[in-house]
């Protein structure tokens, strides 16, 4: 590590301990996630390392918990549900959220701040309150225990994330491009799809990924609103963790870590791309 000339011993010690602390915190963040990966290959039905695992004995490792996921109808249904509900909620949240973000970014929007606060509130209100309220209200509408009900609920929870990301993408948006397009005779819808959309696309896509992961990860609303038919992966994990702990859950957890890593990579790629677009370096 390079230090300025005026640093004495104590300054350097301070900087070293700062670096050490930072690495310790990074370890605290990462280790719990990393530790479940080897445990999910444990041949024994425990949540701890066996002596064989520590000795790297191949017999101590197995794929049987992964096989158990595939052979269990409940898990298969949960996986299907998670993707189905997530995809449908994402579409609704993305369309409505993108439009709203465009409207809210205009200086002409009346009551901008208040409307923004209301539209972002699903992200802040504790899920237990949202879930309890939805249970009362959706039951009256006959939506409790239906796919429709769960999808609507998850879409509502996902919209704030779309608004935030699209809003960020619009922060550097130059409205004279819209004026130019319209002035040259393009129709409003042509302008929307050919001028506005390409420029805010990274924001829209990362917003939709956030909306998807919100639904994919959500369990409290599902607990209250969904019937057995709408069981999702987190719901299945939750009951598994409450009733009998079994390493199949660890295997599912590892698969979910892989999904998150893929989503993270996509988002980071989009962010870099968005940055290039804003700074005008896109080819």
């Amino acid at each position: 590590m390079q230090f300025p000339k005026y640093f004495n011993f104590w300054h350097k010690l301070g900087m070293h301990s700062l670096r050490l602390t930072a690495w310790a915190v990074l370890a605290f963040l990462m280790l719990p996630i990393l530790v479940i990966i080897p445990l999910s290959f444990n041949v024994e039905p425990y949540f701890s390392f066996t002596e064989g695992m520590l000795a790297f004995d191949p017999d101590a490792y197995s794929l049987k918990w992964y096989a158990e996921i595939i052979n269990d109808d409940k898990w298969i249904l949960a996986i299907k549900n998670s993707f189905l509900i997530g995809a449908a909620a994402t579409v609704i949240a993305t369309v409505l959220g993108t439009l709203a973000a465009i409207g809210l970014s205009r200086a002409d929007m009346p009551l901008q701040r208040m409307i923004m606060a209301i539209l972002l509130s699903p992200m802040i209100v504790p899920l237990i309150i949202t879930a309890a309220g939805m249970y009362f209200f959706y039951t009256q509408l006959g939506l409790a225990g239906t796919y429709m009900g769960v999808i609507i609920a998850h879409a509502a929870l996902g919209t704030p994330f779309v608004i935030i990301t699209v809003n960020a993408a619009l922060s550097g948006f130059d409205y004279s491009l819209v004026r130019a397009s319209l002035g040259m005779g393009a129709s409003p819808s042509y302008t929307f799809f050919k001028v506005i959309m390409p420029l805010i696309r990274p924001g829209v896509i990362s917003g939709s990924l956030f909306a998807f992961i919100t639904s994919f990860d959500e369990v409290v609303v599902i607990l209250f609103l969904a019937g057995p038919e709408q069981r999702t992966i987190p719901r299945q994990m939750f009951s598994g963790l409450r009733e009998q702990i079994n390493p199949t859950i660890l295997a599912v957890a590892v698969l979910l870590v892989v999904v998150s890593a893929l989503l993270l990579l996509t988002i980071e790629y989009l962010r870099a791309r968005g940055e290039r677009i804003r700074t005008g370096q896109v080819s």
Partner: protein
Amino acid sequence: MSQAELTAAPTAASFNEDSEVHSGLTPEEMRQSKRNQRRRKLIATAFVIPLIFFVLIAFIAPIGTMLYRSVYHPTVAQLIPETLQALQSWDEASDNIPDAATISLFAKELHYLAKERRSGKLAEEINRGMPGSSSVIKSSARKLKKLDEATLANEGAERLLAAKKQWQEVKIWRTMKSSGEIFTDSFYLTATDLTRNEQGEIVARDTNIYIKLFAKSLKIALLITFLTAVIGFPLAYYLATAPAKVANTLMVFVLLPFWTSLLVRTTAWIAILQTNGVINDFLITLHIINEPIEMLYTQFSTVIAMTHILLPFMILPLYSVMKGIDPSYFRAALSLGAKPLSAFSRIYFPMTLPGLSAGALLVFIISIGYYITPALVGGTDGQMISNIIAFHMQSSNNWELAAALGSILLILITLLYWIYDRLVGVSNIKLG
């Protein structure tokens, strides 16, 4: 996307020259400009309307229903409507029990409820207002159930009074009358450990469960906020001052946990903290301890798991603020002879306060209403207010009390959210 929304896209007219009102304009031009302004407002609004409508139906209305549920309690009124009607004319402040006609009406309704197997529900409801009355109602219902219609009509009142001596007392009738009110503040009183005494005055309850629970939740949330700030600050500082390449790589270690499912991280903590989990095994192998330590299902496990889960919410705003601080201020202070500690506390730290307050408010707001992690790792000691709301929703079926507790929590959150909006601005929330 529907056609209506598409046509609401910006039109040529709406993007005409900015209509600043110049003093030299003719009245016609002024009108034109006002019209344009109105039109642009309408167009901007038209984009937002679909979502406002959707959020209103899908989210705001449910929250409203919950608020309504906390004061609306029709259950008893639906079970014994005629008795309650008759009780209207009875003066509950007097020391006399209601007249025979009223009591006989109640006997008739209780007989009916017993036949329908719904007397248990009534017993449960009245018992909330008067502990111990459940058995009185249940056993009386069993006795009345056997009577035939004729006996019931003639001597219903006597049979009921004979069934249990408590019917001779005013207290149970008072409780029935007050439980029968359709709109009531009694659940808010319960939620704040208050009650009404026989004179109708609001007094403290002997047991204070809920105030304690709110206080505990606040304490846990504060502790988590403090912990995330203390361990998040050095990391954010390190990331913000490291070379861009290193920082970007290390940022993945913050973002991956942020993106990883909440349940995955909670599962990981269960695996780590269990009696025969990773930490205990490790410590026993090293002969540091002989007996495994009980860590899971305690308040400690709630705090450590939630600190882990919420840490990125602290680091990300801190990092983005620190990124914007020019390092030359700090260097200037040092080269002018300030000691590093005072340069840090007087120059650098004050500049990080916007990020710190944003992160702290965010972590505090999220943790105060947390449900899943305490439910899975908290045991009885590590439960928070959300868990008791869930308990009253799912197990004790006291929905009104759940709604009242939820409303109090909601008020608290709304207040914090409002402060957050004032200080940080809700539209400045950063994701990743």
